[in-house]
């Protein structure tokens, strides 16, 4: 009798330990390879490289960097414009695919190809496309839009306006990103019960009123997910810019990190600059990430499971 009781209590204790044993590797891994580097970079950004003491000088140096504010504002413009543009385009695409027309599954299959391309492959595509003798001008020529000898300098010479460069980067990036936003929205749309929209039609709504009054409100949590996740990746845009325009022509925050760390690594200030920019990018992304966790209810006390 005693034995049975004993084994029962042992089992309960074991049950309590098992989940912790299962998650222990993740926790240890994160401490070593996430917490430690994050602390290192934070401490490093507040450390005087000569004296080893505390300083705000590194950040002062970053803020005084003549490319900091241009990089900041370029990033901000790209984030705001591209997230808005991509959201509406992706929503339209998701609504189209959700109509489940004949062949829509094949359509979906093909439409997500841009999302599947690695960033360098997408960059190769636009780099070869946007040069004066690239495939985009060739296509326009074959379509009869451009005459012989007439070429559009998409990326301009050094006189290209910033607005034009931003517009091209935003459009090119949108091509890659729209499918990934679309696929999140599509999943949300597919979760909306058909009856809800049908009721809207029964009560005399047309397509757009049903969309505005029923579909979009029911989709709101999905929209939050899609927009914030896209926001986080938009803050970190850099590769397509560097591969189309090179370093420095259209500075953005992550491009500055790579620039100071890889392109001019020998300067006295390189490491502090790279660290400073890194911390700034991390703070911006963390704000967005916290906002995401907040709207998805992470900080509300809940008992229910996954």
């Amino acid at each position, binding site marked *: 009798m005693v034995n049975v009781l004993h084994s029962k209590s042992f089992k309960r204790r074991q049950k309590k330990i098992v989940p912790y044993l299962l998650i222990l590797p993740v926790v240890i891994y*994160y401490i070593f*390879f996430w917490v430690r580097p994050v602390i290192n970079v934070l401490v490093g950004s507040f450390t005087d490289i000569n004296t080893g003491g505390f300083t705000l000088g590194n950040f002062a140096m970053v803020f005084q960097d003549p490319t900091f504010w241009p990089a900041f504002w370029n990033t901000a413009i790209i984030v705001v414009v591209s997230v808005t543009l991509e959201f509406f385009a992706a929503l339209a695409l998701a609504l189209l695919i959700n109509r489940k027309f004949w062949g829509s599954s094949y359509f979906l299959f093909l439409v997500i190809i841009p999302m599947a391309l*690695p960033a360098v492959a997408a960059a190769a595509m636009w*780099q070869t496309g946007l040069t004066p003798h*690239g495939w985009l001008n060739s296509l326009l020529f074959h379509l009869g839009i451009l005459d012989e000898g007439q070429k559009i300098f998409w990326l301009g010479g050094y006189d290209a306006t910033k607005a034009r460069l931003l517009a091209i980067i935003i459009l090119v990036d949108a091509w890659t990103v729209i499918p990934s936003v679309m696929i999140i929205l599509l999943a949300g749309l597919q979760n909306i019960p058909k009856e809800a929209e049908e009721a809207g039609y029964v009560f005399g709504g047309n397509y757009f009123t049903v969309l505005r009054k029923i579909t979009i409100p029911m989709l709101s949590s999905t929209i939050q997910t899609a927009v914030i996740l896209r926001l986080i990746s938009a803050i970190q845009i850099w590769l397509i810019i560097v591969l189309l325009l090179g370093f420095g022509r259209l500075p953005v925050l992550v491009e500055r990190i790579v620039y100071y760390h890889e392109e001019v690594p020998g300067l006295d200030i390189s490491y502090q600059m790279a660290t400073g920019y890194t911390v700034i990018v*991390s703070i911006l992304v963390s704000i967005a990430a916290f906002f995401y966790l907040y709207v998805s209810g992470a900080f509300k006390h809940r008992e229910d499971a*996954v």
Partner: protein
Amino acid sequence: MTSKSINKAARKTIFYLFVTTLLVGILLPVYFLVTLSFLSTREAYQFPLPMTPALKTDLKLGYGERGYLLSVWERSEDDYATVLDTNDLDKMRVYIQSILGTKITDEELAEQIARLESSGEEEVFFTQPRNLLYNYETFFRVTRDAVPALMRSIQIALITIVISLVIGGMAGYAFARYLFRGRDALKFSVLFVRMFPGVAIAIPMVLILANMGLYDQPMGLALIYSVGSIGLTVWITASIFLGIPVSMEEAAQVFGATKLQSFVRITLPLAFPGLAAAAMYAFLGAWNETVAAIILTQFNPTFSVVVYQTLLGATGQVNLAAAGGIAMAVPAVFFTFFIRKYINQMWGGMRV
């Protein structure tokens, strides 16, 4: 009745025209990158670029001032263009092979020369098949490091898969089967870590990995990539294990299986498709990543870094760069199609 059905047919036609136009617009850039990767060097530097790769090359041999005159059929001009005047047959063969991306052997060329000489005509015409993979062969041959970098990328991806499946899968199982204190906190930490910029880890990791002797090593990068993909694996595996009823494991235990046996025999096979998807995600994350790889490698770059450098330097020919881009894209597109069902788990599903 009839006018109604005509109306319906017309609307359907317009709808499909719209869908097709959209599809063409979306896929055109991909089509051109593929085409460019198949173009010969001669064609890749023409304007306008041909809209399709040629499958064969029409050639013409005649007599020139210095020897034989080689001409090639120009699709855009609808005429032959003279490209070479030489006595050196080796030079001519190399030109046809490399600049025209066309298959030809010494014997075949000698045979055509003999035909020209014996026929007594001013010129002879012949057609050779294109070597469509020439740019790919050349990219891997002339790009310093391309082949070892490819091997390293695969190695890194495999290590990342193992680390994240083992560590992430254990935590995913815990999430699916146990309620425990700190469960929510950990679940959201995992999501937060995944959202945190990789570049912010890569910069301080330079020193940490250097101290471990893993800087510029595939293992070092795999350790970094696992940070992101563990989070993903936790979420994917948690949702898979949730979908497999505990009662099945318990039933096995009733028949005398141990807990571990029931997991290995019952749960694991059922979870296999999902685990495969998680593995493919880990592969994609490691394969596509560039910025951490740039920061954390020096002499041992990954394949994505090699393609990045080819594009950045703009020293490589455009058709070779295109071949590199496609080589990079093919495995990524391939795996994405397998896992498209799970794409929404990428960020912890719809509702967290």
